């Protein structure tokens, strides 16, 4: 060997035991779907089927909602708040104990690198349960009056990009606030949610408090439209978010919606440039860019554009794309064939609209779904790749001349989920943060998450917040 080539360092999959088929989790038990139908879930890194998962229909949702209602009325709403907290602590501890198992399963079903599922996703999942466990008996401080009340039964629909983390963001605050839950994981990544159902059993969580109904869009629609549901919490595309808002209009239901984004990552010329380059990489290539708050629009001050791009390309050439189970992999597989074709369609539009494409020189595996880390330079505000969410490892690079122009361009989007500001000048960061219309603004960092920090969007990026006191209060009705 003449160069330092890293030999494969594969995480063992022996810790997970994936059943041939998975049933629905309703009222504390795994039950077959009424339709008798199952659909496959695949490993996007190989394209091979991992397991079959129940296709829940309206009848199954009906049962799940009834179980959740029963658990809410008879058990969960009557239980002392401190006892609810104990269940959440117990779940958090079990998640930590079984962290490796969850990380491996998440990587298999989702395609994300084991380094991320192991070091980011699953630790944050446990952190969310610990954080909200502490809230369970302190709800009078949640900011919604002195005697806050839960909504009752909450329908929750989560996406495929952070399957377990999104589950935690939804279930932990809902249970802490005293609600019961019917949750639908994404159809391409249902396995960790079903493993979580086992954790609920292991923790002795009362039957019906958490129900997991797998399925595709029709199953989600059945949840949204079910009259027995008091509140909807959804994370996913703006398109579906609008459908949900329309569906619940005129009903008693309330909703929190975490939708798409097209975040600006603004690099001023006085930034610590090398770390800003790391921030660009982390902003757009973390989780293959399957991140609603991804820093997908790079706004770089024109006088440092060339220097930043040169450094960025050198850095991108070091990104290791490949088997997500390899501990040295930085970027894994695209989650599905459908997502890959969407990325290809939008990048082709980038080419035809005149932007210049550059992809990191990495070897693409022959099986599964992959897309190399890619940047487009010479992008202008009118290009589709500057306006539409690509949800893949694709960065659009735009320039600006003055701080005012940076803010104008950053805000010139129907979205407003997140933004990044890079400068060593504190006053400039504070000024920019106050001008940016986005729910989360990172200064000299990107994609940092904490259960205590509220997350959510402006404009078409959503309604409400998740995390922190604001996220908790979204699961509570105000008292006096």
């Amino acid at each position: 060997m003449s160069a330092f080539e890293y030999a494969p360092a594969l995480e063992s999959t022996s810790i997970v035991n994936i059943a041939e088929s998975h049933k629905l989790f309703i009222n504390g038990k795994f039950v077959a779907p009424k339709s008798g139908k199952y659909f496959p879930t695949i490993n996007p890194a190989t394209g091979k089927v991992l397991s079959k998962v129940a296709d829940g229909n309206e009848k199954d949702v009906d049962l799940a909602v009834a179980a959740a209602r029963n658990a809410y009325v008879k058990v969960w709403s009557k239980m002392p708040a401190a006892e609810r907290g104990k269940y959440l602590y117990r779940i958090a501890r079990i998640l930590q104990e079984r962290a490796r198992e969850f990380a491996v399963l998440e990587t298999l079903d989702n395609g994300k690198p084991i380094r991320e599922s192991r070091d980011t996703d699953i630790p944050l999942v446990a952190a969310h349960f610990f954080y909200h466990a502490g809230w369970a008996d302190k709800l009078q401080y949640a900011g919604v009056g002195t005697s806050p009340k839960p909504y009752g039964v909450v329908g929750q629909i989560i996406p495929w990009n952070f399957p377990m983390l999104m589950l935690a963001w939804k279930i932990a605050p809902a249970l802490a606030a005293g609600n019961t839950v019917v949750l639908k994981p994404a159809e391409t990544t249902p396995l960790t949610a079903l493993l979580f159902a086992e954790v609920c059993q292991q923790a002795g969580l009362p039957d019906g408090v958490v129900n997991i109904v797998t399925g595709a869009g029709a199953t989600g629609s059945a949840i949204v439209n079910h009259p027995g549901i008091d509140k909807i919490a959804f994370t996913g595309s703006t398109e579906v978010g609008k459908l949900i808002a329309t569906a619940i209009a005129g009903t008693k239901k309330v909703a929190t919606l975490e939708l798409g984004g097209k975040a600006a990552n603004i690099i001023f010329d006085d930034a610590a440039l090398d770390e800003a380059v790391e921030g660009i990489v982390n902003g757009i290539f973390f989780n293959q860019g399957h991140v609603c708050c991804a820093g997908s629009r790079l706004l770089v001050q024109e006088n440092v554009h060339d220097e930043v791009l040169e450094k960025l390309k050198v850095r991108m050439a070091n990104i290791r794309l490949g088997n997500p189970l390899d501990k040295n992999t930085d970027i894994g597989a695209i989650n599905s064939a459908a997502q890959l074709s969407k990325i290809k369609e939008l990048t082709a539009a980038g080419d035809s609209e005149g932007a210049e494409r550059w992809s990191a020189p990495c070897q693409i595996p022959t099986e599964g779904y992959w897309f190399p880390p890619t940047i487009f330079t010479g992008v202008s505000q009118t290009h589709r790749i500057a306006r539409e969410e690509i949800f893949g490892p694709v960065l659009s690079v735009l320039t600006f001349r003055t701080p005012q122009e940076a803010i104008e361009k950053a805000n010139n989007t129907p979205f407003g989920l997140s933004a990044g500001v890079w400068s060593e000048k504190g006053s400039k960061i504070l000024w920019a943060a106050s001008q940016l219309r986005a729910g989360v603004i990172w200064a000299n960092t990107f994609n940092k998450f904490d259960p205590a920090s509220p997350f959510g969007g402006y404009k078409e990026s959503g309604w409400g917040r998740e995390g922190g006191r604001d996220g908790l209060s979204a699961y509570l009705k105000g008292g006096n």
Partner: protein
Amino acid sequence: MIVDSSESSLKAFLKTLPTVDEVGVNARTATLATRSIKTTSKAWAIDTAISMVDLTTLEGADTPGKVRALCAKAVRPDATDLTVPSVGAVCVYNDMVSTARTALDEIGGKHIPVAAVSTAFPSGRASFKVKAQDTQDAVDAGAGEIDMVIDRGAFLSGRYGEVFEEIQKIKAICGEKAHLKVILETGELVTLDNVRKASYLAMLAGADFIKTSTGKVSPAATAPVVYVMLEAVRDYFSSTKVRIGVKPAGGIRNTKDAIKQLVLVNEVAGPEWLTPTLFRIGASALLNDLLLQRMKMRDGYYASPSYVTLD
């Protein structure tokens, strides 16, 4: 990168360097520390690390016997396995240079340079006359490498011109005979911004290598410090086409630490730096751990430390 040695010109130049965000550097080095180096790549890394060790003894109690023993170890780190490469250099105090040179020459170590610590090592607190003589003596005694310390007091009080000039003059004394390694003593410079500035000062003044530490101050070769120095040599190369070497020293005691250093080199400066002419590790205890790990890879089990020699 044209800059003259005047105080104002140096100051102005150093201000143009981008600042370093410590939080970002810590996060990046923490990620790189999770690289998992196994099997063939581990074997390659161990042998490469051995060939990069500057085997060092810098004690008041150093004797000719101790230095000769160290030289024997440098030439043949493992007497039972001649496939083990010899180390990068032997690093000693000024007065031991001729002893080391002679010993190495006698036992087949002509290719191994002797590195002498110089310029009133480790504190650097002496007149320039003394520092110059210190260096001249070492070069005359056969040192192929001079590990000088910068004047941290001058650097911290903003007298960059003095630091620069001193390095230039020492470089002139080294001439063609000796390579110059410039020790920044990053544990006393403290901030990563200072590390970047001092790296540039040393490179501009003619350093062949920039080195983290004397080994007498803690912290020494931390990952963030080495990371910033590797960025400096990478960027210096991209503007001048000259490759400067990097030498972390102090605190690298086991194979895992050494491999983490090689990962940093590979992913920050680039694979071109993975050679003893551009990367060295200043250490003493490290070599034995590398040998034990090498035996483990060969035999499949861990040998007792009694199977590696003490020197």
